[in-house]
């Protein structure tokens, strides 16, 4: 399948160990791909929402300025290969943001060009908590085809979407029908720590609660959790160039940075780290579900693993549920 996809000119974005870390990377060599892993460093969101996205080229001439769009038709066809159900499910809330009443054509084109081949989880670690936020280790949400490893080296393939079907139709020899396979026996079991609807209801009323100050004491205000998260979508727009021409791009940004909300006057509505930590959690579990009807978290646990000071989100949420 991998060979077929590369020879068909598609770019494959798969978990590869490179420069010392396991993360999603473009590759054309199947030998490099990890087919059995707990979690990658960065998520697969870069396939649709890369860390830096050129938007416009500007030129300033005698008649004034002009802007030229980057041609989205030139965006490549990409296959995200081997994304766990959490990463696959994350494209839905991301899409909800980028198509909320106005459509971001860079994102939507990349998503249109994307095929997601998911990989169910056969193992997990103490940072995973997908089952507490409405996802599970064998979830088909977001995958076009979901592969679940079976004993013997084959994969149970669930064709989830028409895109997946089109792909399967192109290489019928690789697929054969099976019956009576119980997927729940093949995937790992992630213990449910809390119910996401109950969390949503509970956290709604907690804006003034002192728990945020306690929890945020050790937070150092970096953007690691935001950037590794498959759902976080805050961005900045920056211009870089000279007096005759240059580039306007969109890049990742984080609500955890101290100056994210600062006004030119110097007034900062979120001056202390606890207000920013509160914003992170309330946006994911209260505001976003309320406004865009999507949950802002898929329980992948990357934020907890990458956090330099172990701000373990599922631990914090469990503490909140117990209040």
């Amino acid at each position, binding site marked *: 399948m991998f060979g077929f996809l590369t020879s068909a000119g598609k770019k494959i974005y798969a978990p590869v160990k490179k*420069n*010392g*870390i396991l*993360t999603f990377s473009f590759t054309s060599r199947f030998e490099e791909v990890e087919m059995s892993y707990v979690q990658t*460093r*960065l998520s697969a969101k870069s396939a649709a929402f890369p*860390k*830096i996205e050129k938007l416009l080229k500007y030129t300033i001439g005698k008649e004034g300025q002009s802007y030229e769009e980057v041609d989205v038709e030139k965006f490549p066809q990409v296959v995200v290969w081997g994304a766990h159900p959490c990463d696959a499910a994350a494209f839905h809330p991301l899409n909800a943001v980028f198509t909320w009443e106005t459509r971001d054509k860079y994102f939507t084109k990349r998503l249109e060009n994307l095929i997601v081949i998911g990989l169910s989880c056969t193992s997990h*670690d*103490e*940072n995973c908590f997908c089952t507490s936020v409405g996802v599970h280790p064998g979830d088909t949400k977001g995958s076009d085809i979901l592969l679940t490893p079976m004993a013997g080296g084959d994969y149970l393939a669930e064709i989830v979407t028409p895109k997946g079907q089109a792909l399967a139709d192109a290489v019928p020899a690789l697929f054969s029908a099976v019956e009576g396979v119980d997927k729940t026996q093949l995937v790992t079991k992630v213990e449910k720590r809390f119910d996401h609807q109950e969390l949503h209801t509970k956290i709604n009323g907690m804006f003034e609660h002192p728990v945020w*100050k*306690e929890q*945020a*004491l*050790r937070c*150092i*205000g*970096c*953007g*690691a959790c*935001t*950037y*590794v998260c498959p759902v976080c979508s805050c961005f*900045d727009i*920056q211009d*870089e160039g000279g007096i005759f021409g240059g580039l306007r*791009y969109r*890049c*990742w*940004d*984080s609500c955890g*940075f*101290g*100056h994210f909300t600062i006004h030119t006057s110097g007034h900062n509505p979120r001056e*202390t*780290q*606890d207000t920013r930590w509160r914003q992170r959690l309330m946006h994911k579990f209260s505001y976003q579900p309320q406004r865009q009807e999507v949950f802002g978290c898929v329980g992948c646990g990357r934020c*907890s693993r*990458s956090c*330099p*000071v*172990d701000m*373990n989100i599922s*631990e914090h949420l469990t503490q909140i549920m117990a209040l």
Partner: protein
Amino acid sequence: MNKLKERAKELLTSGTVQVVVGYEKGTGERIRPAFITRPEDADRLVFDAGCHHNLALYLYKHETKHLGKIAVVAPPFVLRSILILTTEFQIEENRLIVLGVTPGDELIEFGSFSEIETWVNQHPVEMKEKDREILKQLSAMNSGERWKFWQNEFLKCIKCFACRGACPMCSCFRCTVDYNNPQWISVGSHQLGNFDWHLMRAMHLAGRCSVCGQCGEACPMDIPVHLLSFQLNEDILRMFGSRAGLTLKKESLLSSFKPSDVENFIR
């Protein structure tokens, strides 16, 4: 570490301090910073060789200072950081109680900062063997190979600024990156901009680094950024004969001039 827990309990119960900043067990095998405000929570405190966060960075943060007087659990690199921060007017001696802890499990409660100064000068800076090895390899490379090494590493950088966040010496309320007029350092992550950021940060830390290695430890992409500062430290030791964190003298190395300063870079 019972001595530490007992002392922390005493300090909190007597109201001498309102918060003890130390280490506690985190998720799985991890250790993380702890903020103990109640005597009964002092049992959460741990100390062993796995305690690596540089707690000095919390000592000047508004959110911690707001709690009251602070006692800080301080392994050697934190002690050095405390001295550097004092020379830079970021922390004041009379607002802090320093509970020095050493790998040998000793608890040393320093009565004054000059006692810390004496202690750190008696206990030389230790670099991890792993870091020493890589630095040796890097020094053996020619500049082209070294350039390629760092190019590769910085491709991974996502500009999350965890390196900045984990470093006590990155204490600027408004970092160079946060200025937009002019925008000194690119905001987005691209090859040239990433280089700019790391090299600029290394220069801002030159002569000020306490050799804790936390910037590299904090990096979610495992970029060994600490090596840049470590190497600069060695260069500065060679050129100016001094190391950061060993003195209370308020004299900033790179912003002061002595006639004896090396000038072999001016040709």
